[in-house]
């Protein structure tokens, strides 16, 4: 067991397969005093859809941002298609074939649909590097038609689209690119049932093609079982659960989350009591009625259900 583990905690050991396109070994990341990722071991096989589950603040988005080149990890190593992988920028990650739909979508409100679709991958003419807007419009229309998302006009600024449409554009932008490893950070968050189903359908089609490997962060277990091959659960900066979807069930996943919540609640109470008893001791030394105040605080501490999850996303 790695020395970063808490008592009683199960950390998934390094697992590999011959056809891995992505491998993450002992990756850790801190933001100042906050530890976002403690010891991440993860692998992604070719053509696989991997679900990444976890509580808010568990480290899902941090992991995605490291894989996508937006953040750099502090320690550990990563491999992409057999090559050492440590992207210094989103651009480098894209060159390695990894592209990302970020949680905040990375759309610019003031730019039009087609400008957003081609943001930082614009087509330019030669010799004068002017934008080839007509070609970009044409390709945007084709890409959106392919996905089956209805947009009134690709010349509209994205500020004027609905949340679901914006999300669809962010997904379409990545999928229509060259990437063969796609990271989707909550692509369904702002979507209605119908639009969400369209995106899930799209992920399914990509999986069927066998060419693209996907890491998908979703919260809906139904969607996990519908489209994902394998489930990883990330808790408090480590991956604690790794099973093919065929070997697990909604109830097992639920059980893990409930257990996690119970432990977090217990932990919160214990910390609270410990702090209070220190306070009480100090107060007693000072000749105050320490015991009574400690009891009071303790009761309010028990009422607090804060799971004490690590921030950092």
């Amino acid at each position: 067991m790695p020395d970063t583990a808490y008592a009683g905690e199960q950390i998934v050991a390094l697992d590999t397969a011959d056809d891995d396109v992505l491998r993450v070994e002992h990756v850790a990341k801190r933001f100042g005093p906050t530890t976002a990722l403690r010891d991440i071991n993860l692998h992604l096989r070719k053509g696989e859809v991997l679900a990444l589950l976890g509580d808010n603040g568990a480290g899902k988005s941090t992991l995605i941002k490291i894989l996508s080149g937006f953040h750099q990890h502090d320690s550990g190593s990563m491999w992409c298609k057999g090559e050492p992988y440590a992207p210094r920028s989103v651009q480098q990650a894209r060159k390695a074939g990894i592209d990302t739909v970020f949680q905040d979508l990375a759309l610019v409100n003031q730019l039009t649909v087609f400008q957003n679709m081609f943001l930082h991958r614009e087509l330019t003419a030669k010799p004068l590097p002017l934008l080839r807007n007509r070609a970009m419009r044409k390709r945007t229309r084709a890409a959106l038609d392919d996905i089956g998302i209805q947009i009134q006009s690709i010349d509209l600024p994205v500020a004027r689209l609905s949340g679901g449409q914006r999300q669809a554009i962010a997904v379409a932008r990545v999928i229509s690119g060259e990437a063969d490893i796609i990271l989707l950070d909550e692509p369904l968050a702002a979507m209605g049932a119908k639009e969400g189903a369209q995106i899930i359908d799209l992920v399914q089609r990509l999986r069927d093609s066998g060419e693209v490997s996907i890491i998908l962060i979703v919260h809906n277990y139904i969607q996990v079982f519908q489209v994902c091959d394998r489930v990883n659960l990330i808790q408090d900066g480590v991956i604690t659960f790794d099973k093919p979807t065929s070997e697990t069930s909604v109830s097992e996943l639920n059980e893990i989350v409930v257990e996690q919540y119970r432990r977090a609640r217990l932990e919160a109470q214990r910390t609270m009591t410990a702090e209070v008893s220190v306070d009480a001791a100090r107060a007693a030394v000072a000749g105050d009625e320490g015991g009574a105040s400690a009891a009071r605080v303790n009761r309010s501490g028990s009422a607090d259900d804060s799971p004490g999850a690590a921030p950092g996303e």
Partner: protein
Amino acid sequence: MAATSETTPSAPESGSPPKRRPAGPLALLTRFLALREGSIIVVTVAAIVYFAITTNDYLTFGNFKNLLPYFCFLGIMAIGEVFVMTLGEIDLSIGAMYLVTPFAFWKLTEAGIPLVPSVILAILIAGGFGAINGFFTAWVGIPSFVATLAMLFFLDGLALIVSHSEQITTPGTEIVGVPTFAQIFGAGTYSELIWMLGLGVILQVLLSLTRWGVYTVSAGGNRLGAAEAGVNIRLVMLRNFVLCAMCAGLAGILEGVRTSSITPDPSGSAQFLLYAIAAVIIGGTVMTGGEGTVIGAILGALFIGVLQDGLVLKSVNANYEYLYLGIAVIIAMTIYVLVRRVRRGTGRA
């Protein structure tokens, strides 16, 4: 039927607003107002009509020539500032840049460097100061307002020190008559106008039709999102501050050559800074970033020029000039804000 389609109840707040399609001349009017520069055109035309009616010689060729020195150098300063303000930043040092660059030009010629290379080097020096603005804003993380305010004081001081607080004769203008160098760099009647229009076309193309422009808009509109998409935000900021400083430096040299003297007068250049920022804003560039227009900034400078020239022609006391300018800016911006509401309804941004 058209009326009912205007009020689609299903459109969510953040969603697509219903499309309005007014018919006939109204459609043309809305189309026109839908332009980012629509309001400044309305206000400028209104000012021209007013002065044409209330003065005798307004719409004459002679007056047009009088008008040029009021706004051309301002326009050059303003189109550079557009690139910084579209980022959601501001460059307060362009007045000081305007002030100090001609002195750099003078010092370079004193050192024996020929005129044209001196001009180019002086503008590059201005660009260097712009790079310092960009460095402190993008890398150190000082708000551009503060970083460029510091630069303003620094350059004002530098100009006073270099010049020993004395007016000098602009190099290249000492000879009797107007030599070719001076003709090109500001002294010719249309020299500044041609510089402004030429640069205006190039920079509008840069803003609208190149990656540089798209990255500028994206860095001003959604900095984090643009970074996630792969845009190198710091580089975009750096080069826009450099561009802005070089425009201001060029404007300073052109004015120095036109007036054939360079005066170390920081209060005058501070005035030009405020005029240039006013031109950018009333031209349609949004202070919070993400939207900018070079043509609008030129029109904004034109409006300020029209106002100054017209008030002189009406023999209005100079003290009233500022008062009227203040009122005019408020009117222009009010129209702009109202027009924006119309624009939102037209499917254009």
